[in-house]
């Protein structure tokens, strides 16, 4: 700030407070709705303050689920989401680190070709090749499995580029010193490249966890067995079925549970999250 202008500072605070409130409004309403009995919505207006039911909708949904819509208990769906998100996170980091290491630290025939093959995945989001990818997964018998939910999503050009960038900034002398100290390629990877990328890995993990948890279209098409439903896709099934006799409290309880894990991750690891976001876009 160059000069002190109380009015502008006041205006800034005002804008930000309004912004924070309007950004929070949808979630506030969901939280509030989830604490009312379903009868509270009959009047035709959504309540603005917490109701008498407290966490009962959560508890009910956690172990029963919405039986009318044929979804399993939310606990099961949350678990599925967690497994999918973790496999995607760990899988992407592992295979991207290994390929970035190969591309940076070796010279071999078809190296540039491999790089471009990985690069191309950037241009093929799952949404545009949805039908044939589904067919491949179906032919491989991977429908309704954790492997089918996660493996097709773990190729990552972005993460590979990120690790390539990280490795390129490691000084050459470090590698030379390690070689003189008797470290071969995999020992160097394990003893030096990996520990020195720790914060990058953590930052990337935050972003990838959110990415994995929030997957929607892919689980929607590769799962027909409800025991593999993830919570984010399950919401839709639930919401569309209960439309006739809307149990808004239950739906909103599920919505809140669906967004809690990634939101908590962002709030708790804000610094890593920002670092991850900025780095993956370079």
């Amino acid at each position, binding site marked *: 700030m*160059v*000069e002190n*202008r109380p009015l*502008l500072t006041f205006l*800034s605070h005002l*804008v930000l407070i309004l*912004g*924070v409130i309007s*950004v929070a409004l*949808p*979630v506030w309403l*969901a939280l509030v709705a989830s604490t009312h009995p379903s009868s509270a*919505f009959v009047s*035709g*207006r*959504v309540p603005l303050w917490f109701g008498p039911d407290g966490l009962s909708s959560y508890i009910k949904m956690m172990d029963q689920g919405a039986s009318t819509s044929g979804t399993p208990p939310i606990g099961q769906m949350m678990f599925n989401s967690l497994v999918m998100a973790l496999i995607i996170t760990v899988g992407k980091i592992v295979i*991207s680190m*290994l*390929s970035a*290491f*190969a591309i940076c*630290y*070796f*010279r*071999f025939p078809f190296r*540039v070709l491999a790089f471009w*093959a*990985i690069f191309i*995945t950037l241009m093929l989001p799952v*949404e*545009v*090749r*949805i*039908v044939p990818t589904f067919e*491949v*997964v179906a032919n491989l018998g991977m429908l309704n499995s954790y492997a089918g939910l996660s*493996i097709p999503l773990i190729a990552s050009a972005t993460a590979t580029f990120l690790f390539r960038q990280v*490795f*390129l900034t490691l000084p050459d002398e470090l*590698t*030379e010193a390690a070689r003189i100290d008797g470290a071969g*390629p995999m020992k160097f990877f394990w003893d030096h490249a990996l520990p020195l990328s720790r914060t990058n890995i953590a930052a990337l993990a935050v972003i990838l966890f959110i990415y994995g948890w*929030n997957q*929607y*279209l892919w689980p929607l098409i590769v799962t027909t067995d409800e025991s593999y439903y993830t919570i*984010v896709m399950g*919401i*839709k099934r639930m*919401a569309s079925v209960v439309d006739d006799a*809307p149990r808004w409290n239950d*739906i909103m309880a599920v*919505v809140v549970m669906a967004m809690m894990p990634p*939101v908590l991750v962002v*709030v708790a690891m*804000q610094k890593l*999250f*920002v670092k991850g*976001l*900025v780095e993956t*876009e370079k």
Partner: protein
Amino acid sequence: MQTKKTIFRSRALPYLLLAPQLAITVVFFLWPAGQAIWQSFLRQDAFGFSTQFVGLENYIALFHDPSYLNSFKVTAVFSISVAGLSMGLGLLFAVCVDRIIKANRAYSTLLIWPYAVAPAVAGVLWWFMFNPTIGILSYALRQMGYNWNHATHPDDAMILVVLAASWKQISYNFLFFVAGLQAIPQSLREAAAIDGAGPVKRFFTVVFPLLSPTTFFLLVINVTYTMFETFAVIDASTSGGPAQATNILVYKVYQDGFVGLNLGSSAAQSVILMAIVIVLTVIQFRYIERRVEY
């Protein structure tokens, strides 16, 4: 392409390290993409019994199909609205936070968390708020004399998906604008202040022009976001309706392919979308290359 000066010597190891990534790339990316291209030249009958090579017919049919052309228009309106709204608000919040010395971390935290909310959840949340019977916002609008119903009014539906998609994206734009603002040297603003420019003039003559690389970058990212990642927003709120009013290109691929089982047309649409992503990616990378040179 850049490598390290110091490298390791091994014949098999690099291929072994690359194998998992390349296997997944080939099986789940390149092969399906190739399939999409191949299928876009075929036509299947409704029961999938016979397949026939039809050349460019699927493409030609698409560009004569009013619903496809409409989808283009819908996508354009949707993209531009979301990019404009979320970038505008993101920039506004970023500028405000940049002015404030105290509490800017707290504000940042309170503004960035929606990034973590799944697009599908965002769609449900806004659908709930605008629900014609119990939604708080439709209630407020009714009080003001507007009878909101996104299930029947195309414009209402578009506004709903734009708001839901923008809500989630503001945090992203906010973060990058904050970073962009912080990268502008304080001395430049001080020099402008000494030259007699007030805060508003300073913003438009010094700060905003210097933010233009960030703005351009975000524009590309936001267009990509609205074209592909908003699938879940649409599916969870309007399902493309009413009367195709929110049926964006990527949603139509899914509908025609999975719901309508019109594989040839869906494949042709996929190929057109791929072409669009390729253009966007190339623009993005051109831009990054240029930025690196600074």
